[in-house]
């Protein structure tokens, strides 16, 4: 087990470096110098040069070979490439162009708002989907099962934006059950995240229930379930004690796949409900061409995914010891 944990930890290193390589290629090689863009249309050459220097665009892309031949290694590796890695790994992403604040500081300020939406949304989706799919597994093959599956397919066909806009219009605007937009930190946040959370859960339910149902039905066909029924155990006991426990293994392994969708959900929901979290931060950065923020969010997002994947794999190895021998 210890060997597996170490191996799995080491495996995250090339992935994190790979992500930085991708963002470097994307932002520095494909995207290129944005200082003229940042300075605005009527900026003087000096202003542009200053922004260039501030953002490090005046440095050589990979390495300063001239300095290297003179033996000045420090100057030689002071390049965009090296800086990109060093900056990200030390979480110094530079300043946001819009707020003028250090990106990392702003990320820390905004994280609680995002979490207050994402965590209940994530747990809610998980528990409700599992509950519904267990119920469906119980009534499998009946008209109820068919109806639920059909509703799921319809549910996953609707675009997320429609859930948000119609939900906002009917539940908040027309019926007045929830505040339309806004946020306040602390416990007061509950009032404001309730509706976005609900809509996020609703939009994710379709695909989750459908997938979990397949997992549950696979388990229902297994020999040990037949044995459990044969020895006279009640349906509830079989479902909760046997099926659910075994179905959790594939379910846990797909939970991490929900992270990208969580991101999408937070992105759109935060923007609509004006929740000052990371999602709205990212969207605003994209529309206002705030390079430092987009770069930082891409890296942080990937880091979260890698961490999630690591946690899943370790849980998986705990539940199923065969994994660590592979």
């Amino acid at each position, binding site marked *: 087990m210890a060997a597996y944990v170490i191996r799995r930890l080491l495996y995250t290193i090339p992935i994190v470096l790979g992500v930085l390589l991708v963002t470097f290629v994307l932002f520095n090689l494909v995207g290129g110098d944005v200082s003229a863009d940042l300075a605005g249309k009527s900026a003087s050459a000096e202003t542009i040069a200053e922004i260039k220097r501030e953002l490090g665009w005046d440095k050589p892309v990979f390495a300063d070979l001239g300095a290297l031949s003179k033996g000045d290694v420090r100057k030689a590796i002071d390049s965009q490439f090296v800086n990109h890695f060093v900056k990200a790994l030390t979480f110094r992403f530079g300043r946001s162009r819009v707020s003028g604040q250090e990106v990392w500081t702003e990320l820390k300020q905004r994280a609680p708002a995002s979490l207050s939406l994402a965590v209940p949304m994530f747990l809610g989706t998980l528990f409700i989907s599992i509950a519904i799919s267990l119920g469906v597994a119980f009534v499998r093959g009946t008209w109820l099962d068919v109806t639920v599956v059909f509703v799921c397919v319809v549910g996953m066909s609707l675009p997320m*934006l429609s859930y948000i806009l119609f939900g906002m219009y009917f539940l908040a605007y027309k019926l007045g059950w929830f505040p339309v937009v806004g946020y306040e930190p602390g416990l007061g946040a509950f009032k404001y995240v309730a509706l976005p959370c609900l809509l996020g859960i609703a939009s994710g339910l379709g695909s989750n229930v459908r997938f979990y149902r397949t997992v549950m039905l696979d388990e229902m066909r297994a020999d040990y379930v037949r044995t459990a029924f044969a020895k006279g155990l009640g349906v509830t006991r079989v479902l909760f004690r046997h099926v659910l426990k075994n179905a959790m293994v594939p379910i846990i392994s797909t939970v991490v796949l929900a992270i990208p969708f969580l991101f999408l959900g937070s992105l759109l929901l935060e923007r609509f409900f004006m929740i000052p979290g990371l999602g709205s931060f990212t969207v605003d950065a994209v529309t206002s061409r705030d390079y430092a923020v987009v770069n930082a969010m891409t890296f942080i997002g990937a880091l979260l995914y890698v961490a999630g994947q690591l946690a899943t794999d370790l849980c998986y190895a705990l539940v199923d010891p065969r994994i660590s021998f592979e």
Partner: protein
Amino acid sequence: MTGMAAATETDVRKGRGMWADAWRQLRRRKLVMVCLGIVLLYVVVAILVYAGVIAGDWSKAVGDRYQPPSKQHGFGTDIFGQSVWRKTLYGVKVSLTVAFVASLISITIGVPLGAIAGYFRGRIDDLIVWLFSTVQSIPWILLILAFAFVLRGKTLFGLPLRGMAVVYLAIGLTSWVGICRIIRGEVIKHRERDYVMAARAYGCSRGRIIIHHVIPNVFHLVLISFSLRFVSFIHAEVIVSFLGLGVENEPSWGAMIDEARIELSRGFWWQMTAATIAIALISLALNVVGDALRDALDPKLREA
């Protein structure tokens, strides 16, 4: 179960191929045929829009602004008095083009990479696995946004990148991972099969074995995977256009929803409803057809 076994037996006797057999299974299911009809209808609409037969005059005002749906105004009008119905039809072209080109891009990248990784294994496999694990680690929507962010205003082979081109490049370049994984996994199984051994014994080159023997045998996975993934491409286009990074100067469902955001609070529900129905209908049809296709071609394949 016995019925299925019997069916397979007759198929073998008649020498029916995998595709013919799949088609026979699909044809028996009414709902699937209806959904296939819907998909074809969308394709026809997209072609007719390209040909300029319908919705070519979407920019023309057909009445006053914000007219509700009626006999005279069809699906109603928007802020410029343009017909919501025409804009929706035009959106079919935009959406299907984006999804189709994005699929082509991701197949072109994903299938060869997956086949090479699965067939050669070793170092090259490690490299490709590392590459797709890396790309997969970046949450999809962030990667698309980042791509759309940097591609806008750039040129590719001298062509300026804007509007739709940005969207399908961003989606295509970020979504080859799924198919690459699937193909790799399948090719690993196929490389040990007898037909590959036979081809090798015949003295076929490795390139020939991959292109002429292995890929045709795993290609049905591409079809299954993309009939389902098409839906997420359509939804991605909506989101990217909605965020103002995508399609410009022509109507798209995402842009319509963006406009509807303000309209809805004033009670003008029709543009939002039209876009929602258009998206939901094609998504639903593709989901049903994709599921049926998977069941018919490869019942073992559950995810993808």
